[in-house]
């Protein structure tokens, strides 16, 4: 097929659960491409010589190469190409913000002057990963002889899983310490089932287990084991403990009954299965839910509230639709499902009744001023314009700070003013020799793929560090 023909092909429309139906279940929203759909979408790739999409990928997946295998039907080769650089394609295919990364610079989208026309790289990645999982074709790679070196990975989120996968394949022994009773970090407790089925996360973890990675659950480093014990027992340490300290607004009423951090709300629903009648974990099933914030976590919270039976859900965001940090796809899905949006409104106070239960919020109307440090136009209050809305559950989704437990347990670790660990950008090494870090504990709240990118860099540097120390020991 020549370029002109390829450019004529329209994007394949992803089949999805109908919005009116899906708000009553937690099953995944998009069904995924059939082989025929994947083939048609793959045929839209122009196989550019300069490969702008690869430059847009934080882990440099060889995108045109894997897309070519979908055209040729050699799916096993395709998944092999992806897994050379991306350990978790079934996850990334679903939750990566492709529209800001690989797909943003896609020549097809540029030619049509419409980023929405770009090749749907994420959906193709998901297609291959799902095909591999459903057909049980994941192959155990040849692992080199044991190096005799031991690596401790703290946290089983995307950064930690990447480090574990990369290092086990290089012959090092890897133990992953997880504070919760289930693996995945934010993939497990944060991202809802309807966006990332947990079965996928657990399948990835089980693959790592088959490679020989040892997972220790219910183990909080800095508490169950001291950081020094871990440093003594292992030749290198990777800290991927995430951004687990929810921010609140600091306005009156945040202690009222019915006010949740998004972390708590989503953890109850996802990790603890509070949506399931058989789960012992309670959750307040609000009828009228207000979500504060405009990111992906706010979208996840709003859509979860619908599935828990809310009759009305409103996302309250202090800037306008344009500045909203949520992915377009998530915003679009939320709108489809009936989530309402109240833009340019800033909560001043959460209101409650005499028994301490939430009844609503007082909001300040905002307008946009000059751009601030983030490059987005700064929201400014319009004097005298306040109003109120009613709500029986309020979810605060305005971000997280890095988890303080490890830094508190390792005082020699150099921290930045946001509470994140300071690392060398190339090696992810911290101020403590032999201790590396990556993911949200370094980045603040970022994305799965950026965490994985840092994990990859760290794994490379840890391998170099272990090889160097092995050489020193020999001489």
């Amino acid at each position, binding site marked *: 097929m020549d370029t002109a023909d390829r450019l004529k092909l329209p994007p394949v429309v992803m089949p999805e659960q109908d919005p009116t139906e899906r708000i009553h279940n937690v099953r995944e929203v998009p069904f995924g491409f059939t082989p025929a759909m994947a083939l048609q979408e793959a045929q839209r790739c122009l196989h550019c010589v300069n490969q702008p999409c690869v430059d847009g990928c934080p882990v440099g997946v060889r995108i045109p190469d894997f897309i070519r295998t979908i055209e040729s039907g050699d799916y096993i080769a395709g998944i092999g190409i992806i897994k050379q650089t991306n350990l978790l394609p079934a996850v990334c295919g679903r939750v990566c913000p492709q529209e800001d990364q690989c797909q943003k610079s896609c020549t097809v989208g540029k030619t049509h002057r419409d980023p929405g026309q770009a090749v749907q790289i994420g959906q193709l990645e998901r297609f291959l990963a799902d095909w591999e999982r459903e057909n049980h074709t994941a192959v155990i790679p040849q692992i080199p002889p044991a190096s005799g070196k031991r690596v401790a990975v703290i946290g089983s989120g995307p950064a930690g899983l990447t480090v574990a996968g990369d290092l086990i394949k290089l012959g090092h022994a890897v133990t992953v310490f997880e504070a*919760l009773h289930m693996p995945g970090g934010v993939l497990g407790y944060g991202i809802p089932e309807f966006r990332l089925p947990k079965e996928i996360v657990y399948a990835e973890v089980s693959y790592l287990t088959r490679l020989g990675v040892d997972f220790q659950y219910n183990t909080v480093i800095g508490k169950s084991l001291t950081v020094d014990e871990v440093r003594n027992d292992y030749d290198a340490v990777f800290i991927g403990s995430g951004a687990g300290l929810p921010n609140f607004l600091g306005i009156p009423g945040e202690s009222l009954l019915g006010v949740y951090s998004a972390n708590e709300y989503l953890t109850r629903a996802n990790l603890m299965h509070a949506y399931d009648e058989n789960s*012992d974990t309670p959750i307040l099933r609000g009828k009228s839910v207000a979500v504060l914030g405009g990111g992906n976590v706010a979208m996840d919270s709003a859509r979860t509230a619908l599935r828990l039976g809310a009759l009305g859900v409103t996302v309250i965001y202090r800037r306008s639709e344009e500045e909203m940090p949520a992915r377009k796809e998530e915003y679009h899905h939320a709108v489809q499902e009936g989530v309402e949006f109240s833009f340019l409104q800033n909560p001043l106070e959460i209101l409650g009744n005499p028994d301490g239960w939430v009844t609503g919020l007082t909001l300040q109307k905002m307008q946009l001023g000059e751009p601030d440090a983030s490059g987005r136009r700064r929201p400014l209050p319009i004097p005298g314009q306040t109003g109120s809305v009613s709500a029986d559950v309020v979810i605060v989704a305005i971000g997280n700070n890095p988890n303080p437990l490890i830094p508190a347990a390792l005082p020699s670790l150099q921290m930045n003013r946001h509470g994140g660990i300071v690392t060398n950008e190339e090696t992810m090494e911290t101020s403590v020799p032999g201790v590396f870090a990556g993911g949200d504990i370094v980045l603040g709240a970022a994305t799965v793929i950026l965490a994985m990118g840092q994990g990859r860099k760290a794994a490379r540097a840890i391998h170099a560090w272990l090889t160097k120390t092995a050489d020193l020991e020999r001489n």
Partner: protein
Amino acid sequence: MNTIRKREELGPNVTRYVIDAPLVATHRKPGQFVIVRVSDHGERIPLTIADADPELGTISLIVQSVGKTTREMAMLRSGDAIHDVVGPLGRPTHLQQFGTVLCVGGGIGTAPLYPIAKAMKEAHNHVITILGARTRDLLILEDDMRRVSDELIVTTDDGSYGTKGLVTDAIRALVGGGTHIDQAVVIGPPLMMKFTSLLTKELGIPTMASLNPIMIDGTGMCGGCRVTVGGEMKFACVDGPEFDAHKVDWDSMIRRLGTYRTEEKTAAERCDHECRIGLGTRGPEWILPTD
């Protein structure tokens, strides 16, 4: 999975479990807690550590069965296992030689108070303990507390044992009798902690209270355990569980504990029903589905 090595009923609905948890046993300090999940579908609940044996790798938990989860736990026998135990969590008690330390325990709160009293004694304090219970049967750990205290006073609401009255009456009597107290530690039901703290504030006695709010992860991630202390928001799991009792917003804390009262009542009723019709006596395989 954490095996129950020993199980002992201390009173009506109060059970002591000695559980395998080697890392917790070797790392815990007085004042810390664990989070347990009894079964595969279970919720995560925080429980304070009453004691530990680092050599045997065991910890003691003393649990009062009040809701569905603690009732399910009460059905477990020696040799059964608790699905998950994680810890030790929270900051340890601040220990120093204060002089005279008053340890006030209410009901089940005596369990976490025990290791603190013991450590206060080891830190060369003169330890005076007041234990309060509604009635004699609900008094726990009296002998253990007596061993680590220089003086022990028991009060019961109904006068069935010790002095009739509340722990606050005993504190007043003690201070009225000329005893100088340098530091107080209070652990018990929230209302008891509130009123004890109001009294010690009036009497000018610095007081620490150990809070047990609703929690999920116990590592700072969920923010469910937030409490207001001195006008600031604190997370009991990483900033506590012990706080300056005089600065705690007790009313807000007590209200938040009631968040799931309706849900808990429904769950407990369902649990009661299942127990009555025999489901609950089917033993651990019902509570702990095989993995």
